[in-house]
């Protein structure tokens, strides 16, 4: 690998940046390993090295304060060595089925629109019903006075009845649209429910795969942990200090990209590289 910090360059499988100064943030260096380049407090760090994988995300930056889920990380380490599990085929199929779920339109815009249209139409119907009743009343009143002057009132009633009939038709159409939108929503929910079931299935299979891998890698992990420098063996290997656990996981796994080691457990970058059997960049913790 080639590491550049500002205008200084370092080359080789083990790079010691402790001498460059303690101001360098290990996380920035790890970012540079992953992305090629990082900038922190005005200092540019670039790294040319092999590409990182899923394991590097977990244990690529070893510091005493890093958070680590040791079991999950160990399962990823086992994967990096090409290990498989009996549920892998089922898992692949379940993931594929999950990808294939076609949800359709999950927004409910048509439903909202149908409900609003219907509410407006129903308001109109109520308003026009009143108008028809009023017009009918006026027709009756005119007839009581003088049958010959009822023509205007008759015309108003005819208009009102026609308008009412139109909005009643519109309301019926809106009701039908709302019904269709509800049916469509129900079909979408069937697919959403299928997806939830598949997500549960995938999560369940992932747990089983992880348990299998952790079980298989446990001995290697414990043996790696017992050789971590400057460590009193913890009672529960999965309760080890995060930097020690990360180192042990990294040693179990297969890492091509450089590991940033800033834990104070190695005196030189070469010692870290030898112990990890992977390229390493050493910094002060």
């Amino acid at each position: 690998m080639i590491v550049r910090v500002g205008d200084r360059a370092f080359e080789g499988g083990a790079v010691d940046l402790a001498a460059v100064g303690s101001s360098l943030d290990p996380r920035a260096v790890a970012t540079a390993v992953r992305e090629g380049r990082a900038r922190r407090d005005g200092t540019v760090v670039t790294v040319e090295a092999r590409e990182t994988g899923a394991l590097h995300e977990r244990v690529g930056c070893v510091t005493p304060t890093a958070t680590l889920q040791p079991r999950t990380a160990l399962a990823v380490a086992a994967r990096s060595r090409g290990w498989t599990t009996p549920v892998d085929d089922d898992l692949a199929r379940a993931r594929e089925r999950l990808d294939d779920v076609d949800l359709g339109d999950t927004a409910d815009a048509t439903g909202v629109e149908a409900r609003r249209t219907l509410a407006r139409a129903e308001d109109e119907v109520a308003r026009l019903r009143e108008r028809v009743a009023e017009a009918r009343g006026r027709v009756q009143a005119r007839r009581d006075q003088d049958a010959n002057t009822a023509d205007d009132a008759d015309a108003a009633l005819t208009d009102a009845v026609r308008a009412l009939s139109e909005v009643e038709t519109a309301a019926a159409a809106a009701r039908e649209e709302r019904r269709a939108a509800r049916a469509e929503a129900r079909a979408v929910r069937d697919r959403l429910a299928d997806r939830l079931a598949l997500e549960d299935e995938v999560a369940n299979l992932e747990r089983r795969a992880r348990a299998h891998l952790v079980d298989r890698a446990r001995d290697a992990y414990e043996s790696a942990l017992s050789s971590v420098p400057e460590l009193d063996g913890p009672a529960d290997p999965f309760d080890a200090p995060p930097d020690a656990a990360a180192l042990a996981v990294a040693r179990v796994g297969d890492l091509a990209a450089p590991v940033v080691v800033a834990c104070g457990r190695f005196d030189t970058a070469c010692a870290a590289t030898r112990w990890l059997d992977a390229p390493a960049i050493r910094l002060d913790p």
Partner: protein
Amino acid sequence: MLLVITYSQPARQALRNLCNAHEETVVRRFGRAALLDPTEFAAFQAVRLREQYGRAVQVERTRPFDEVQAVRDSVREAAGAYADRDSPGTPYAKFAAGTDHPDQADLKETEL
């Protein structure tokens, strides 16, 4: 009451958060559903969830089921008799055959 049912992980989490934050509004919680008080506040929350998650949130308005008003006498009587049957293994269709109890197919076709 308002029955809110969720159909996606984010919607489920949002409903969970809502239930935790407003326990007084929640009548009952189920896995990914909850029954909310019939208040404007509950309606506000339900509409908000629906705005945010679309069809992944279903909201139904429920009302107590009054079997005396909602159901024919013969149906209620059949239900009582079936609940009280001697052999628990008898399916209703067989139980009703040759009696005055309503036919299962008819029951299925008749809307409430």
